[in-house]
């Protein structure tokens, strides 16, 4: 197993900020179109972090024109340029699937109290 850990260790990224479920993040994605490369930003709430080594992912949910959109990003993918932590949310569970059933004001996440 040590060999596998060593191989995976070389592919892990430690430059992303520590974010949690409930946080609002901006994910800056590198998008390659033929020769060109551009950055696309996806902003939303993190509703799940599936930890692990190279296979880890996180899911970001946003409501776009009244339609809920969720995207799953690999945590260690080179396609992620950077992740910006916008606000930290106060939530009581790690998997926020209940947000899918809520709309409008009810679907808001309270910001974390900072004393």
């Amino acid at each position: 197993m040590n060999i596998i850990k060593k191989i995976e260790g070389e592919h892990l990224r430690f430059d992303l900020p520590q974010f949690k479920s409930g946080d609002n993040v901006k994910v800056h994605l590198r998008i390659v179109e033929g020769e060109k490369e551009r950055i696309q930003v996806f902003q939303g709430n993190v509703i799940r972090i599936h930890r692990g080594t190279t296979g880890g992912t996180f899911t970001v949910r946003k409501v776009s024109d009244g339609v809920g959109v969720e995207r799953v990003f690999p945590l260690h993918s080179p396609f992620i340029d950077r992740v910006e932590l916008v606000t930290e949310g106060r939530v009581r569970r790690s998997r926020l699937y209940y947000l899918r059933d809520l709309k409008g004001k009810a679907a808001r996440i309270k910001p974390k109290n900072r004393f």
Partner: protein
Amino acid sequence: MAEKLGILGRKVGMTRIFASDGSAVAVTVIQAGPCPVIQVRNGETDGYDAVQIAFEEAKEKHTTKPARGHFAKAGKGLFRNLREIRLEAPAEFEVGQELTVSLFAAGEKVKVTGTSIGKGYQGVMRRWNFAGSKDTHGCEKVHRSGGSIGNNTFPGHVFKGKKMAGHWGDERVTVKNLEIVDIRAEDNVILVKGAVPGPKNGLVLVRKQ
């Protein structure tokens, strides 16, 4: 009959890495070699052309006296595993020469041979993907059976190769056209794209094709 050169290794396990273009690739980690050449067989004395390679050092107490005598000729120590690979011109290899993962290059396609995971005695539904019978509608006792296995007086016997229940797995399986993603010479490790037959720690033979 002639094969192409290869080395023995052990399947360490699977993981996922990111390729140079950023895409995620599922890979099998194989720890292979170094494999010393123990004997070079030739048509004149042995009746066929092959190289005999060894893998994994063994303690003296785990080897038999005849095996110790055989390994002594190569002078590379004692080993657990011996395999022969039939080659067209094995004379280009010398006894004692070590074959390592540097034999292969990233991007190359290889053949990997292993012993598949044993599944025990299995029925036709699991072993051959038969549909089975109904669970209800008057169906009795034959829910997972294979149905008819042939005709009547003519031909009077069950055809050879008829798919039936029996032992499944634990047999030699070769997978071709597996791409080498990376070679790590310092660890004697090969990363192969996709799955490889056998359990973790299973012995595998990686060959050129």
